[in-house]
């Protein structure tokens, strides 16, 4: 008996190594190797390194101010996003209403748009010519303030809370809450004492993602916050590109990674303690149409928030792209000057989709392997934290690391499409792992055990028991992986690109020139990007494993 237990533990250990091999090797090659190389080269950079000077710069009050601001804005942004996003997740988890899929897809659109375009959209909401300004009178202008940064962070990250929490929430058995209500507990108390503790794992997981996203915020702070604000990421960019102070940039990068690691470790440790197996229910059990007037009011309030925050600014962009009828769209298909950098719109769409789908596929495979390896492992939380690091690493630093390492043997990938796919996968991976782990951890062990007892092989247990239950979480991870790639995130901006223009690159090219036609084409291209993405989100969500009951 005892021997059997020991051998089963060995097998589990072995399983851990087998499952983790591919994701860890990927991380090693495409994250740690370039990172250590850029740090090593930076620190020995043309003998510019003087440890005392570097040390004093790191401890300078200006650096501490930057770190303080970075942390503070990320913290407030996360709290705000949670406060606004959780009610939204609730109505999406519990109520069934027309247009639900489309609305959810629309909330994710901000993620794929270049920040310059978002800034233009936002000036219609925050600027002196906005509807709000008309109400509040002249002098109203939220642009280039801390509020603009916070609102923009909510705008971007709302969807992370909505999708992640909603997916989990909709499988929670409403019977628990109903029982408490029947026993006389007021709704708030039910939420506080029953629902929230059950939701905590997924709220924490979405929260940490949002936090790290805001902690490494670049475009939003630079463009919407204006030059008065600087996060660590902005400072790293400035030191690297503008001032060529590579040692300081590398040191700041390490500081940022170190903080990310600290929070992630705290979080993964917490995650392990608060997650518990649950009796999960399929969606058709947990969702219904809102009936009571109060429920309808609550639903309408949440939908209005989404409309004001997300749909209205985006719609303003779309309308402007049709400002001259179809002229801007027709112009996209023309190349009157025969420029070699002309991007045919359909080719850009094809390239973007191809790269995004490849990155999504790879991130899903690696993420699934990693999550399966991690979730029953005692020290899994230590390894788990490693998968979050790419999100917390400066894109400039990592991009330069790729430049140094990916052009020489053994990885001659420079300028290849594969390298772009790998870079996107690296940033998409945390989303997949974060999305899958809480779902896996919530599966009752006895389900697996009874399947195994009945003679099912581990693979069959996975396909018939675990996969159907985590399918929704997998779809959430897939949506974000797809999104990250469509929006050209992070390190790719520093990778020398092959001859394969994507939609965001086309937008940037138009936006770098004066003229109504250029601006109009940038808006038209943005509209195309939004449309393609919305179709992508909806298609991914509709995918189901054949023959199983959906959760």
């Amino acid at each position, binding site marked *: 008996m005892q021997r059997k237990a020991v051998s089963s533990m060995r097998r589990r250990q072995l399983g851990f190594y087998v499952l983790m091999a591919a994701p860890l090797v990927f991380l090693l090659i495409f994250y740690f190797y370039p990172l250590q190389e850029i740090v090593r080269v930076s620190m020995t950079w043309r003998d510019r390194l003087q440890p005392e000077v570097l040390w004093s710069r790191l401890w300078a009050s200006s650096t501490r101010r930057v770190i303080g601001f970075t942390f503070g804005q990320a913290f407030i942004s996360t709290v705000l996003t949670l406060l606004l996003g959780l009610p939204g997740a609730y109505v999406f988890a519990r109520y069934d209403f027309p247009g639900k899929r489309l609305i959810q897809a629309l909330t994710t659109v901000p993620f794929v748009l270049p920040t310059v375009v978002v800034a233009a959209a936002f000036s219609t909401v925050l600027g002196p010519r906005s509807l709000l300004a008309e109400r509040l009178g002249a002098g109203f202008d939220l642009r280039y303030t801390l509020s603009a940064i916070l609102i923009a962070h909510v705008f971007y990250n709302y969807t992370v809370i909505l999708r992640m929490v909603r997916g989990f929430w909709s499988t929670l058995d409403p019977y628990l809450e109903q029982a408490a209500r029947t026993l006389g507990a007021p709704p708030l108390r039910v939420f506080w004492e029953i629902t929230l503790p059950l939701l905590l794992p997924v709220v924490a997981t979405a929260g940490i993602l949002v936090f790290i996203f805001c902690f490494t915020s670049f475009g939003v702070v630079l463009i919407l916050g204006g030059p008065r604000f600087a996060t660590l990421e902005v400072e790293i960019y400035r030191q690297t590109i503008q001032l060529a102070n590579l040692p300081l940039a590398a040191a700041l990068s390490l500081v940022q990674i170190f903080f990310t690691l600290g929070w992630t470790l705290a979080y993964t440790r917490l995650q392990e303690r608060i997650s518990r197996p649950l009796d999960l229910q399929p969606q058709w059990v947990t969702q219904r149409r809102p009936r009571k007037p109060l429920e309808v009011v609550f639903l309408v309030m949440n939908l209005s928030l989404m409309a004001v925050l997300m749909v209205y600014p985006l719609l303003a962009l779309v309308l402007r792209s049709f400002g001259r009828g179809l*002229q801007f769209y027709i112009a996209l298909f023309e190349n009157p000057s025969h420029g070699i950098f002309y991007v045919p719109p359909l080719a850009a769409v094809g390239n973007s989709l191809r790269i995004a789908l490849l990155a999504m596929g790879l991130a899903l495979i690696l993420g699934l392997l990693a999550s399966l390896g991690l979730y029953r492992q005692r020290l899994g939380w230590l390894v788990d934290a490693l998968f979050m690091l790419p999100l917390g690493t400066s894109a400039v630093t990592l991009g330069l690391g790729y430049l140094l390492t990916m052009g020489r043997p053994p990885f001659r990938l420079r300028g290849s499409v594969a390298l772009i796919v790998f870079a996107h996968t690296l940033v998409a991976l945390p989303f997949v792992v974060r999305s899958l782990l809480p779902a896996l951890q919530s599966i009752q062990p006895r389900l697996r055990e009874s399947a195994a007892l009945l003679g099912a092989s581990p693979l069959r247990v996975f396909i018939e028991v675990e996969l159907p239950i985590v399918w929704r979480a997998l779809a959430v991870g897939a949506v974000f992986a797809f999104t990250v790639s469509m929006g050209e995130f992070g390190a790719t901006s520093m990778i020398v*690109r092959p001859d394969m223009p994507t939609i965001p690159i086309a937008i940037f090219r138009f936006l770098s020139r004066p*003229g109504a*036609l250029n601006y109009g084409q940038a808006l038209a291209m943005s509209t195309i990007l939004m449309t393609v993405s919305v179709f992508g989100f909806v298609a991914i969500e509709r995918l189901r494993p054949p023959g199983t009951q959906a959760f």
Partner: protein
Amino acid sequence: MKHWLILMLLLALLLMGCAPATPEPTPAVTAPRELRVMTHGSFDISAEVIEAFETRHNARLQFLDAGDTGEMVSQAILSRDDPLADVMYGIDNTFLSRALEADVFVPYQPEALADIPDAFVLDDQFRVAPVDYGDVCLNYDRAYFEDAAVSPPQTLEDLTDPAYRGLLVVQNPASSSPGLAFLLTTISAFGEDRYLDYWRQLRANDVLVVDSWSSAYYTEFSGGAGSEGARPIVVSYATSPAAEVHFSGEALEEPPTAAIVAPGTCFRQIEFVGILRHGAHRDLAEEFVEFALSDSFQSDIPLHMWVFPVSETAELPEVFATHAVRAESPATLSVGQIEQNREAWINAWIDAVLR
């Protein structure tokens, strides 16, 4: 059933991604040699011009988009021993010194340099050759100043006058190249000891600083036909009004904006082409430099990159001849001076204007 279809479709798309996008071209008698050219994101040129070069030299040009100029230079310096490309196109005089110090170029004196004014040749060792130039200067909204009580500013000092309060939007020199160019203009005009005072006055006159050219021109400026902002004066290029006409999308006769090119109010950005050390196909790289200075390439520059060619024999397109202007005696600062003081100037500027 429907889900299966979608799944198959996605799979097919994924497989398409694995297959080569275009069929391999049939090999010529001798396969063309590939020359890699690293450029910034604003680079563009006609396909016909490139094809002519490729046919003549049995070459294939591959252009690598390395982001903005600063990113391109950093990448070239870091990959010096195993360069990303064989030639670099588009490094400008604000970054030149950094690349020269890092010794990323090999000297080559093109024959075509004979036709180019000496004022553009900034490296006497010929490690880089000038190819194009553009003047960064103030642009204004013509409609605004037709109705306003004041006339458009003519000097930098005008901008500190209360009559121009809240009218100007500039770019942050720490994140934008026209922003840096305008800062350098003010340093050249007022000297190192007085430029900060000037900026403090601008600040008191409610200057708006934003991160990039796109934000300034499209989100804050009021003049361009695509612009959505409310400020009638912006830092842009002397060729922007011509681009406004060319890209108006309707037969616009007159630009909605105008550039101010009064003496000392503009900064001239000169772009260079250079052969990267340790690159491949040295002879072909030299041919490319000659080609970049040839009239066929030079005449093609204006409508693709909206800057002027350095060659005086190049032909200017009509919209340039009519609407594009050149700065009268632009600000001057040596490339060495810029590289040496950039960090200190920008930091001092941040303290004076942003804190």
